[in-house]
């Protein structure tokens, strides 16, 4: 008993103990793994394309589906019999989690010290829709017994937890398009509080189906540039007209720096802090002055012990909507003041589209790799910057970051008024 007690007793991170990222995995519209995504971002690659066999009356006819390589990897890793019991959002989460876990060197860890915080913004929606079709066409008796665990919002987290045998806790914070970042914030708390030694964290999304596209189109959130999908996602550009829905997953492995060093793991960087606020302004519209988002960013810096002048790079949420991009630019300026002049901003959704609940996790990976390579990726399709956006955005080519120790941030915002910012330091 004594051994079991000491094993499961909280082991809070000591003062000054950093939480580092030792593994990354990503399945995205621009790559089948994290390295190929990063190469795609540096090359300003396009992830959006027309949707085949699409209903005529759905006004938006394109999306950022998984790249062909990513789709092939998904099919190879998830055999047909597993697809019967895993929604696509769970499948992409599993593939990215496997990559991250292998990348971290498959840490040997007591399952009771391993946690999972893997979420999505929407969950297993396509299962609900296809099983509803089944019920209407073939009767209630034909509804799959796997339906509930496939549609439940905690499905991706549960699937990853089951595969990795994580028994310290599986947590699934849902905050629409801020979900992936919020999962990383929870993971950070989980290790700091001593509830786990290693946490696998991130987000997944896979809802490219006529209903959600029609629904996002009805609220006028999506770009309607059907004739030119590759130019549709254009954060901060004057001609932006909405976001491009994407699918995929991003997963990171977090642990204490001392543990990572002791086992000789490679370290991508430090997740130094997180800030979370809510607007209580409108169910979907951003608070126009960016006050709530600014508080989240300031809180992340405070949590990380960073000053505004330490920040060299921000991966913006910037989804390419007319209102949201401006509000976020104001928020960053408000939080960092004149130090914002020295920050190079990247809006990687120009390449990937908007991966909704996976966005924050995928962009956390991009931010860490920007720190590692000291390069801010370009913002695809930013041809004519909006005059209302008074910040320095990387445009055509990767922009070198300053010399010396580096810190960066990543923002995510979600319908419902959720604001989440993460702060990172180079390893």
């Amino acid at each position: 008993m004594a051994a079991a007690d000491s094993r499961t007793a909280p082991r809070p991170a000591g003062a000054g103990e950093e939480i580092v990222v030792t593994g990354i995995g990503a399945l995205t519209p621009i790559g089948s793994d994290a390295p190929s995504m990063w190469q795609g971002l540096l090359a300003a690659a396009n992830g959006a394309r027309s949707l085949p066999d699409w209903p005529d009356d759905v006004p938006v006819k394109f999306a950022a589906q998984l790249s062909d390589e990513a789709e092939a990897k998904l099919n190879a890793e998830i055999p047909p019999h597993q697809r019967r019991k895993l929604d696509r959002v769970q499948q992409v989460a599993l593939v990215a989690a496997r990559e991250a876990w292998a990348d971290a060197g498959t840490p040997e860890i007591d399952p009771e010290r391993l946690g999972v915080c893997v979420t999505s913004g929407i969950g297993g929606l396509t299962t609900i829709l296809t099983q509803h079709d089944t019920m209407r066409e073939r009767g209630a008796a034909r509804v799959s017994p796997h339906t509930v665990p496939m549609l439940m919002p905690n499905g991706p987290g549960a699937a990853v937890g089951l595969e990795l045998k994580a028994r310290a806790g599986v947590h699934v914070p849902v905050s629409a398009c801020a979900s992936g970042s919020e999962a990383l914030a929870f993971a950070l708390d989980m290790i700091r509080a001593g509830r786990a030694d290693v946490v696998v964290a991130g987000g997944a999304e896979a809802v490219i189906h006529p209903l959600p596209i029609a629904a996002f189109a009805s609220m006028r959130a999506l770009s309607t540039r059907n004739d030119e999908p590759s130019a549709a996602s254009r954060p901060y550009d004057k001609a932006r007209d909405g976001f491009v829905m994407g699918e995929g997953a991003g997963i990171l492995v977090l642990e204490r720096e001392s543990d990572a060093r002791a086992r000789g793991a490679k370290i991508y960087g430090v997740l130094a802090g997180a800030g979370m606020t809510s607007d209580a302004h409108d169910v979907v519209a951003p608070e126009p002055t960016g006050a709530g988002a600014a508080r989240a960013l300031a809180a992340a810096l405070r949590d990380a012990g960073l000053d505004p002048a330490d920040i060299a790079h921000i991966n913006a949420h910037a989804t390419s909507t007319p209102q949201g991009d401006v509000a976020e630019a104001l928020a960053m300026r408000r939080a960092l003041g004149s130090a914002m002049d020295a920050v190079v901003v990247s809006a990687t959704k120009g390449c990937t589209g908007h991966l909704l609940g996976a966005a924050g996790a995928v962009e956390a990976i991009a931010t860490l790799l920007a720190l590692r390579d000291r390069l801010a990726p370009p913002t695809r399709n930013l041809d004519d910057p909006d005059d209302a956006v008074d910040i320095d955005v990387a445009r055509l080519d990767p922009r070198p970051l300053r010399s010396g120790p580096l810190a960066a941030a990543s923002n995510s915002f979600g319908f419902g008024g959720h604001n989440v910012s993460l702060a990172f330091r180079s390893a």
Partner: protein
Amino acid sequence: MTQQDILAGLAEIVNEIAGIETSEVELDKSFIDDLDLDSLTMVEVATSAEDKFGVRIPDENLKDLKTVRDAVDFIEKAGVAA
């Protein structure tokens, strides 16, 4: 229908649903421990077996079908009764 026929039919179902080779589906194997089926996959197998063999497998009986032999025996008896 002979035991062999039922075993072969059941193996086809397990193969389709769980991706396990039909030759692996042997009488003495446990669905959960040896063939690694989860609880809901067992429900799916039972529903498919009901269709294929024209029998009813009530919930109170399903929980007792631990091995392939248990299932074959149950289907054989239920088929005779029907």
